[in-house]
C-alpha cells in the first residue's frame, strides 16, 4: 500500500492573453508534447492513465476532456477528471500522485493535464457565478450585478484578495510599496521564463504604484492577468523513474484542506468570514503535507517555493502561513533579497501566478516549476542546488490550499 511516487517531467504550452491560433484540444496537446519531449524514453504506450481538469465555467464547455480525448493521447485509456475551481491544477497534480501511489495493477505511469482558455469566455461571469445563487437576493435590495461582485466575494475574485490584504496589512503594518515590490520581482522573473505571460524585465515599483485602484489596497498594476495556457506533469513509480530521467523528483507530501464556506461580508461562518488572513486551510494543509514528507523545520529544510499568489499580498501571506517565514516578517524577506533568484529561499522564480494566470492550470504550474527546479531544468533556474521544494495552490473565499512537497530523496511512507 502506498508506493513512492516520482515526477519525471513537466511541460507547458505558451501562455498568452489570447491563444487564438489553437482550439482547446490543440492547446492541451502542446503541453503534453512539451512534457513528453523531455523524457524521450517515454511514449504514449507507456502512459497507463490520465488525470485532467480545468475550470469549466470559463470555456462554456462541460467536461471538455470527453471531446479532447485524442488530443491528449488518451484514447482507450483510464481517465479521471478532477476540478476544484482555482486550485484545479493543484488538485489534478495531487490526483496524479494518488493514482500512482495506490498501486493498482497495471497503473504506474500517469499523465496529469490541466488547462484554461479563458479568452473564450467571460472571466468575471465565471468567477461571480460561484456564489450567485446565494447572493442574488441582493438584487432585490437594489444592488446591481456588477456591484455585487466587488462588494462581496467568493471564488478567486479580487474582492477576496482585497479582504485578505486589509486584514493582513492590519497585522503587519506594511505599505503598498511592499506589495509593489513583490509584483516587480515576479514580473522580472517571468521575463526569463519562456512560457510566462507578462514578461516585464524593466518594471519598477513606481510603475506599479502609478496605476489606479481596482479595490483598495490593490491597484491595476498589481493584478494578475487572465491567460490561456496548459500544463502537463508525468508521475510514475520510484522504480520506473530511474530509467526515465536523471533526477526524479519524489512527491513526499500532499494535502488540500479548506476553511469554511464564506461569502465575505454576507454569508457563511468561521474564521474565513471573520479574518481572511488567518488561513486555517493553509495551516492545516502544511501540517499534513510536511508531516507526510518528514519536514519538521520548513524554513530550514525547504530550498525553493512556488507559492500561488495572484495578488502580491497573498504571496507575503502564504510564505508565512506555509511556514517558510516567521509571521509578519515576509515583507522584510522580500526587501532583503531572501526570496530573490540568488537568495536563501527563492520564491516564484517562474514569475508566479501574478505574471501568468490560466486559472485551471496555474495551481499545477506551481508544483511543476518547483519540480523542475529540483531537476535543474527550470526556465529561470536558481543557481543553488534545490533538494526540497513545495508548490501550493489557493482557491476562493473558502481558502482551499493545495500543497505538494517534493524532494530529490524519497520519503519512506509513514503510518
Amino acid at each position: 500500500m502506498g508506493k513512492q511516487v516520482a515526477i519525471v517531467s513537466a511541460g507547458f504550452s505558451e501562455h498568452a492573453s489570447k491563444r487564438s491560433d489553437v482550439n482547446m484540444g490543440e492547446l492541451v496537446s502542446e503541453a503534453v508534447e512539451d512534457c513528453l519531449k523531455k523524457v524521450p524514453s517515454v511514449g504514449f504506450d507507456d502512459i497507463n492513465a490520465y488525470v485532467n481538469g480545468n475550470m469549466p465555467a470559463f470555456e462554456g464547455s462541460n467536461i471538455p476532456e470527453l471531446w479532447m480525448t485524442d488530443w491528449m493521447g488518451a484514447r482507450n485509456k483510464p481517465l479521471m477528471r478532477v476540478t476544484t475551481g482555482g486550485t484545479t491544477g493543484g488538485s489534478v497534480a495531487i490526483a496524479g500522485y494518488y493514482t500512482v501511489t495506490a498501486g493498482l495493477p497495471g497503473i504506474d505511469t500517469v499523465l496529469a493535464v490541466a488547462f484554461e482558455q479563458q479568452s473564450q469566455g467571460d472571466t468575471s461571469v465565471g468567477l461571480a457565478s460561484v456564489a450567485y445563487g446565494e447572493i442574488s437576493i441582493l438584487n432585490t435590495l437594489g444592488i446591481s450585478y456588477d456591484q455585487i461582485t466587488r462588494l462581496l466575494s467568493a471564488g478567486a475574485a479580487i474582492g477576496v484578495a482585497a479582504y485578505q490584504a486589509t486584514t493582513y496589512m492590519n497585522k503587519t503594518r506594511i505599505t503598498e510599496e511592499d506589495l509593489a515590490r513583490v509584483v516587480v520581482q515576479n514580473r522580472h522573473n517571468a521575463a526569463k521564463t519562456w512560457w510566462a505571460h507578462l514578461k516585464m524585465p524593466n518594471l519598477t515599483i513606481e510603475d506599479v504604484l502609478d496605476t489606479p485602484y481596482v479595490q483598495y489596497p490593490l491597484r491595476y498594476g498589481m493584478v494578475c492577468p487572465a491567460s490561456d495556457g496548459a500544463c502537463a506533469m508525468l508521475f510514475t513509480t520510484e522504480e520506473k523513474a530511474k530509467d526515465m530521467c536523471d533526477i526524479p523528483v519524489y512527491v513526499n507530501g500532499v494535502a488540500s484542506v479548506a476553511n469554511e464556506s464564506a461569502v465575505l461580508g454576507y454569508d457563511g461562518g468561521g474564521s474565513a468570514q471573520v479574518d481572511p488572513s488567518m488561513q486555517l486551510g493553509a495551516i492545516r494543509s502544511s501540517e499534513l503535507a510536511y508531516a507526510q514528507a518528514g519536514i519538521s523545520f520548513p524554513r530550514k529544510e525547504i530550498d525553493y517555493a512556488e507559492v500561488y499568489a495572484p495578488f502580491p499580498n497573498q504571496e507575503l501571506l502564504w510564505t508565512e502561513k506555509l511556514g517558510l517565514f516567521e509571521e509578519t516578517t515576509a515583507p522584510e524577506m522580500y526587501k532583503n533579497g531572501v526570496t530573490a533568484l540568488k537568495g536563501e529561499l527563492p520564491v516564484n522564480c517562474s514569475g508566479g501566478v501574478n505574471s501568468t494566470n490560466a486559472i485551471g492550470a496555474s495551481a499545477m504550474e506551481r508544483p511543476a516549476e518547483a519540480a523542475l527546479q529540483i531537476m535543474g531544468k527550470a526556465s529561470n533556474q536558481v543557481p543553488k542546488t534545490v533538494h526540497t521544494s513545495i508548490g501550493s495552490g489557493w482557491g476562493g473565499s473558502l481558502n482551499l490550499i493545495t500543497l505538494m512537497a517534493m524532494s530529490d530523496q524519497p520519503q519512506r511512507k509513514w503510518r
Partner: protein
Amino acid sequence: MEKVGIVGYNQVKLQSDANYGRYEMIFEAVRGAIDKAGLKKKDITTVISCTNDYYDGRTISNCFTVEVGGGYLADESKVEMDGAHAVLYGLLRILSGNHKLAVVWGGSMPSCFPYHTTRLYETDPTWERPLAYVNDITAAGFQMRAYMEKYGVSKEEVANVAVKNRKNAAKNALALEEAQNQNITVKDVLNSDIYADPVTELMVAQPCDGVAALLLAPEKQARKITDNPVWITGVGWNQETYYLGDRDLSGSKSLELAGKMAYNAAGIKDPRKEIQVAELYEAYAHEELIFTEALKLADRGKAPELNTNIKGDLPINPSGGAIGGNPPCGTGLIRIIEASKQLNGEAGTYQVNGVKKAIASGQIGMCAQNSILYVLEGGN
C-alpha cells in the same frame, strides 16, 4: 490489489422535484451514512465530492458544500464525472495509506436546470455544438439503432428491460415514484412518446433529484468499523474516443476495457459463472443489453436471452437501475450502494439469494464514452 472496504452508505429518496435545497439533501446523505456506521465527523480524514458545475448552474459547485459534506478542515477534493468515478478517487486515497476514512458523495437536482442543454455543452464547440444535432437524445437513438441493426435485436426485447427495471423499482422504497410501475407492459413502453426513434420515453432513465454518500476504509479499519464490510476487490475505468462517427455504438468499448481491468484485478476468470448480481448504470434500456455483453455476462447479441430478473439466472439491476431514478452525478454511486446492499442481505423485497460477488458500473459522456466498473465481494 489490496482490499478496501465500503463501511457505510446512505441515499436520499429520489424525487422528481424535491421540496428542499441541495445543502439539506447533501447533509442528509452524508450525515446519515456517518450515523449509520456509528462514526463521528472527526473520524473523517478525506472527502471526495461529485457535482457538475453546469448541472448546478454555478462555478465550483462543491465549494459551499464543504461543511455539509463533512469536509471542514478535512483533505478534500472533487471529481466532476459520475458518482462512481468519485468512489474511484476515494479508493485511490485509501490505497495510498494516507487516509483511514473517506467519505464520497455525489448528486444533483435536475428539477432546477435544463438537463439536455447541459449535456449539449459536452459536445465539440468548434464543430458540432452550433447545430446541436449531436446531443444526448440523438446519441441514444443512434446507439439503440446500431445495436438493433447489428444483432437483429427487436424493440420488444429492449422494452423488456424497461419493464423489468420499472417493476423492480416498485420494490425499492428509495426509487423515483414516477419510475415505479408494478403493472407496466411491453406495449406500454413501446407506445410511449418517441424520444429519439427507436428509443421511447419509458426506456429512458429519467433525471431526478437525489444525493447519495458512501464511506471507504482500509481493510484493518474496515473490520473495526463494521461486521459487514463490502470489499472492493477490483476496479477498472476507461475512456473511448469522442466523435460518434468514430465509434462502434453497438458495443461499449469503454466498459469492455474497464471490465477487463476490474476482472483482472479481482481475479475473475469467468464472470458469467462467478458474479451473482450486477447493478449497471443504464441510461437507456438498450444500454443494459449492450453492457451485459461488454462485461462478458452474455455473448454478443445474446443479452436478451439472459434471464436477468430478480429470481433469474443472473439478476441485473434488481433495484430498478438508473431507470428507477437517475440523479446525475449520483447514479453510479447508487449502483455501488445497491450492489453493497445485495452483498449485505439488506435489499429487502428485491434481495437476490446467495450473493457472494457483485459488480457495479458507472458512466459519463455520450453513449457511455467513459465507463467504470467495480467488483465487490461480501463476507470475511
